[in-house]
């Protein structure tokens, strides 16, 4: 379970969000510059909120002013918008970089149908394949929470459709909380158990199943 209640002063407004998430998918939806990525980065530990608390499975990973668990120790998978694959490593080396167990990594590669790409470098594979590799890499560490920053925005419609299904299937297999940022309302509707609408730093819940 994830509980987030944080405040952070950004250049034009104050980000002030509070939500709790069980092992479900929450979609963070809203216009550009509304603070969506800042929320993800705060949870991941890339930036420090000004105040508040972030708890993951009952443990505080951030609690102002004293607790700030470093990013490396949070066990949070993060799929960045541009995938951020290591350009100088093969697909397999990307995935095994932080992997905790080889069988699990292989199972993930099977599930995401990227086995045949093991020896390829990121520049040799398509956008959809990169997205699957980045997802496998984020999950290979067996994280307690998965953050996805516009993971489907660079994909064509057909690939995006397949990826939506894949994500839902993976979530069904490995029940962990997932927060996904998107611009697309239809994507939010399709994937989210919860839809959290963020505008100028303030959160409204649009859908709650």
């Amino acid at each position, binding site marked *: 379970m994830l509980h987030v209640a944080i405040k952070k002063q950004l250049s034009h407004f104050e980000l002030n969000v509070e939500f709790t998430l069980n092992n479900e998918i929450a979609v963070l939806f809203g216009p550009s510059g509304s603070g969506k990525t800042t929320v993800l980065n705060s949870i*991941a*530990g*890339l930036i420090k909120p000004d105040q508040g608390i972030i708890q993951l499975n009952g443990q505080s990973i951030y609690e102002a002013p004293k607790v700030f668990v470093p*990013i*490396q*120790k*949070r*066990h*949070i*998978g*993060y799929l*960045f918008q*541009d995938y*951020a*694959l*290591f*350009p*100088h490593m093969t697909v397999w080396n990307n995935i095994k*970089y*932080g992997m905790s167990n080889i069988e699990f990594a292989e199972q993930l590669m099977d599930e995401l149908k990227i086995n045949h790409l093991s020896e390829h*470098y*990121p*520049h040799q594979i398509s956008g959809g394949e990169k997205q699957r590799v980045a997802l496998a*890499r*984020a999950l*290979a*560490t067996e994280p307690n929470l998965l953050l996805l920053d516009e993971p489907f925005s660079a994909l064509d419609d057909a690939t995006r459709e397949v990826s939506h299904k894949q994500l839902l299937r993976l979530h069904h297999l490995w029940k962990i909380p997932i927060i996904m940022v998107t611009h697309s309302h239809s994507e939010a509707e399709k994937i989210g158990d919860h839809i959290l609408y963020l505008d100028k730093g303030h959160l409204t819940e649009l859908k709650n199943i």
Partner: protein
Amino acid sequence: MTDINLSPLWLSIKTATIATIIVFIVGVLLARFIARRSFRGKTVIESIFMLPLVLPPTVVGFILLYIFGKNGFIGRLLIEWFDFQVVFSWYAVIIAAIVVSFPLMYQSAQAAFQQYDPNVEHAAYTMGASRFKVFWTISFPIAWPGLLAGLVLTFARALGEFGATLMLAGYIPNVTDTIPLAIYFAVESGNMEMAKFWVILIVTLGFAAMLWLNWWSKRNMTAHSNHK
């Protein structure tokens, strides 16, 4: 020509190699530490780092003399503590080479560390990697082509250093006479044959370094555009 003393060649190579190693390590670490951070005084610090590039080498030499000379604040301490005088020694040649070549390495390293997506490092952190591991397995290999370019430029600059070396180390045969100094003093004493020999040698070395660097950057640029 048969009786040419090759000591300037070995001295130059030895000096440039040591200076390049030191400048590479310090330049890479400083660039990595400073490049993606913003803090008060960053611009001032970076301007100081780049200063030797725009100052006449004699000015750099003068400042170094002020620091390492008998009455300079470091020079005096070294004499008091270790009875060691930097000025007019081989160490002065190395110090001059380090200071004048540092901006080239710093600039190249800074550009190399800024040209890739910082999320690549962030992704590695989320996978549990330590700062050290991220530096060695992610940042350094990705920045390597740019760092290597800086390394070659640093070596070439260190090899060609003249003004600051003359100010700080003087011309002492077999001790501080690098190739550029050997050329100057050969001309000064009317030994044009000797000067010609060293000129051809240093032009060849410099040209080979630039040729290799251009070939490498072109090759690397193709590979890099494939990586995107």
